[in-house]
């Protein structure tokens, strides 16, 4: 694919919309400062179409204009699914033939995060987007620890349940809470298990960057829009690789 520019209403026009607040009172200078920022972002000419004073110390801006940057899709690195999507039946069959027992999955929201809807969407029978969750898979044993589980507790349960995989959800991202908690979690597992016996570590949540798995010390990161079958298929794929 060739180089692209954003599209407003004509090919190549490069048009974008931006909004932000500057911590200064509204004035012509403030509008100029907004234009300056937009220009530093590559927008030229920057059209400051809206400036709204918010009290004496802040001004909100909306800016339109063409951005000069080119986008090169060929340089984009994405975590594409590098394993086949399986049906529930296939998952069950392959778990059975690989492990000769049920695969144990332990799930939790760790830290102070109490958003369980996301992990429940993956784990509960009810599932997500019309797809059944992992509990529905005969050959998977799911232990859902719920919310606000501490990392030591999680490790303890993983040991106790002989978990093959540990699924962790993190929804709160303010001050990078999700990254801090995930790193703490993966470090604890590295400490508690020899590399070969460490459960597969999966982390998920709406604001994760899927390319950060290595950096976070986990086997896979799942973001927005994940469905249970994505996860089940990945688990099979990873266990077959380990077994072979």
């Amino acid at each position, binding site marked *: 694919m060739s180089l692209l520019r954003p*599209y*407003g*209403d*004509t*090919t190549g026009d490069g*048009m974008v*919309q931006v909004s932000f607040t500057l911590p200064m009172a509204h004035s012509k200078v403030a509008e100029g400062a907004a234009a300056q920022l937009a220009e530093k972002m590559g927008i030229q000419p920057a*059209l*400051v*179409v*809206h400036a*709204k004073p918010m009290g004496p110390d802040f001004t909100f801006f*909306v800016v*339109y204009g063409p951005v000069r940057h080119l986008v090169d899709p060929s340089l984009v690195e994405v975590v594409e699914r590098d394993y086949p999507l399986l049906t529930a039946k296939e998952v069950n069959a392959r778990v059975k033939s690989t492990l000769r027992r049920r695969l144990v999955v332990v799930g939790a929201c760790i830290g102070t995060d109490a958003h369980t809807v996301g992990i429940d969407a993956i784990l509960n029978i009810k599932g997500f987007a019309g797809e059944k969750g992992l509990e529905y898979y005969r050959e998977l044993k799911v232990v859902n620890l719920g919310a606000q589980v501490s990392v030591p507790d999680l490790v303890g349960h993983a040991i106790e349940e002989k978990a093959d995989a540990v699924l962790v959800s993190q929804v709160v991202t303010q001050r990078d809470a999700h990254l801090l908690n995930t790193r703490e979690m993966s470090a604890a597992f590295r400490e508690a298990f020899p590399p070969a016996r460490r459960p597969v570590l999966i982390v998920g949540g709406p604001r994760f960057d899927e390319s950060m798995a290595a950096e976070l010390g986990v086997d896979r990161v799942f973001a927005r829009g994940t469905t249970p079958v994505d996860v089940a298929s990945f688990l099979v794929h990873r266990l077959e690789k380990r077994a072979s």
Partner: protein
Amino acid sequence: MTGKLDLDPVLVRRARVLARQVGRPIVKLARQHTTVSVERATLRLAGLSGADPDGTPWVNRLADAVRADVGLEHGLALPVWDALVRGEGEDLLVLAQKAAAGSVRFRLPDGRDATRAQAAARRQVGAGIRRIDAQRKARERLIRTMGDAPSQPWIYLIVATGDIYEDIPQAQAAARAGADVIAVIRSTGQSLLDYVPEGATREGFAGTYATQENFRLMRAALDETSRELGRYVRLTNYASGLCMPEIAALAGLERLDMMLNDSMYGILFRDINPIRTFVDQRFSRQVHARAGIVINTGEDNYLTTADAVEAAHTVTTSQLLNEFFAKEAGLADWQLGLGHAFEIDPDVPSSLRLELAHALLARELFPKAPLKWMPPTKHMTGDVFRGYLLDGFFNLVGALTGQGILLVGMMTEAVVTPWLSDRDLALQNVRYVLHAAGDLQADFRPLPGSFIPARAQQVLGESIDLLERILEHDRGLLDAIADGTFGLMRRPPDGGRGLDGVFRKAPAYVNPATDLLEGTA
């Protein structure tokens, strides 16, 4: 639908009687005159198209030559077909070329010559009318076979890139995203051109030139998309400006489905001469009537220059006049997309209640007309979030008051001509509101005597007063227009552009198009 406002049927009748009284002298005036554009439209119906190397259409070259030789008060048909019958050219195109080269002289035939010329003209113009009829049938067949817009209101979206080849994919994208009607906005300035540009064009400003070829290209593209979507997507353009009649004819020939066409817009907003406008308007509406085209009137525009609350009754008055003129020209109720708009200043208290009152009034005064409901424009700002919200409430009022054609508002109204994404977001807005409201219209019945019906009755009353005042003028509507009654614009009957293209018909005036359209042929 009707009956939420308890409008007094006696007053409603009175309003219509007054509109007729105001309109009748204008119709008379229109019948007494012809214009260069009416005459050129006749040539277009007869099949003359194309332009000289400078881009001047052959219909203009031919009309100008005839005008130079014999004037236009007898119409073009007699002198032109007389020349053809005389063998001055093997067809219209050759004749026009020779006329342009100055190698043919025109005369006004009489007696047998006149009869022969007239018959030849009627044959050829009749073929154009038949093509319009065929297009109307084609539309009906396409709607029958591939399906119509799924529900009311029809979702109406504009494209305005200036380049027909950018417009096309954008229009198709909009249709896929849910548009039922696509309007191709015209380049600024086209309305003041006294000719219709030719060919596919790519250089409009804030709109794309209305040309026969652009019409054809867009209609073909939408036919393709309609097939893909399994519903007929309508196409709209503007029959307005100095070439209103010609564009109406091209719209009929190329199967456009709706046309912006107002009885006073050109006068008020383009400073086109009032008489020129009324004559052109009557002819163009006759064409639309024949072509099965829905017209959209322009009352919404008044509220961009006048205040939407103070001037609410001028909208109603204009709707009544547009209705009268439209019916006189042969349009049926279902073809009357009477305009109005959500333009009340959001800072006015209870703006939503006022809008509901105005929108319901239009709905109940014209129960069978589709009504074109226009979004906020004047009070839109660069705050696109606020704009998106205002458009949502506009959509809600549309849903609650049963509007027929919902012109989708754009959050970037005050910023740019709409982007692809603006349209997509705007359609999402419409879909959400219509879907969420469902049939809330059925539950929503303002308490009798409450604010909403009271306001509607007040506006109707003011509109009746205004019609009465218009009648008191010596020259009725013409004087009222000169006074700034509509949109605060003052336009005297002898001012404005295009007056030199107006001719009082001579007794021997012949126009086979008018004859055929009026069924007098």
